[in-house]
């Protein structure tokens, strides 16, 4: 039973355990955990515990690692709420749309409605109008920062800013990103000098705020911390 090679095989176990502890990225650590499982299966079998080895292989290595990957994937996510981009054609285009409809001379109103949407879609395709991506540079920057901490960024779109604030308050999202356009107060008259788009990022989780605050350096953007009802720690 006590052959020489048994000692060498048993010595592999602490090496792999150390490797798994030293990994920083959670997914890499999980794969090393799988390697640790394979090595420990070998040790159990060599030492004569066949049932333990089988259990370790089926439950510990296969099921455990797969479940942990799913769990890490669904929990290491930062949900960022934004107002969904509006798909509005420009006025000039609206004119051309009307012209196109007129040219086609469609009488029946039902048909017209169907065709209207069809023409609209084709026009949009023709002019290559994409729905305006909202705040692309800020979102890219946040994604880059958050990726350093192995978090995924998930965008959640809301129809208007009131629902966005409500979602932040009811803890549906971890942070919201809004673009404030400065109107001269109250009268909603846009003057050229005061029009500065200002991106405001409100973060509910304090740890995320600590991560984002020093690293997000885009002009005209501010990061602020809004304390939620409970002090949930993230990451």
């Amino acid at each position, binding site marked *: 039973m006590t052959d020489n090679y048994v000692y060498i095989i048993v010595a*592999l176990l602490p090496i792999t355990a150390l490797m798994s502890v030293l990994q920083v990225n959670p*997914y890499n650590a999980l794969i090393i955990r*799988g390697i640790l499982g394979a090595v420990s299966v070998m040790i159990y079998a060599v030492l004569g515990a066949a049932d333990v080895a089988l259990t370790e292989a089926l439950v510990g*290595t296969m099921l455990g*690692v*797969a479940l942990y*990957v799913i769990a890490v994937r669904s929990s290491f996510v930062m949900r960022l709420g934004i107002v969904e981009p509006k798909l509005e054609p420009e006025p000039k285009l609206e004119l051309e749309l009307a012209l196109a409809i007129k040219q086609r001379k469609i009488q029946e109103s039902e048909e017209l409605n169907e065709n209207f949407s069809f023409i609209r879609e084709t026009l949009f395709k023709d002019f290559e109008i994409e729905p305006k991506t909202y705040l692309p540079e800020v979102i890219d920057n946040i994604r880059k920062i958050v990726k350093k901490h192995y978090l995924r960024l998930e965008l959640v779109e809301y129809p208007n800013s009131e629902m966005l604030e409500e979602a932040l308050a009811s803890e549906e999202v971890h942070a919201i990103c809004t673009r404030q356009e400065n109107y001269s107060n109250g009268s909603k008259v846009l003057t050229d000098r005061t029009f500065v788009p200002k991106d405001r990022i409100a973060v509910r989780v304090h740890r995320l705020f600590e991560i984002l605050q020093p690293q997000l350096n885009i002009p005209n953007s501010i990061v602020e911390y809004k304390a939620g009802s409970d002090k949930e720690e993230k990451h």
Partner: protein
Amino acid sequence: MDSILIAMILALLIPMYEACRNDNIWQQMLAFGSIATKTSIIMLFISVLRDDWMIGVISVIILSVGNAGLMLLAHLIKGLNQT
């Protein structure tokens, strides 16, 4: 026979070193697959060496199930990289 076994364990050490050194997740998956195959072959070898049926059956089961688990894991990680 012992020297053959020690050579096999040395071959097992190479993908382990690789998995420790490389940070790319697919390279680590490759190393994991290699280690899974190698450990079960070593187990099979030991079972023949000792004329032990029990270890042999376990090693063959692990050879097939471990590979299936590896495929599952690969698909999970692929879905992870896409989002």
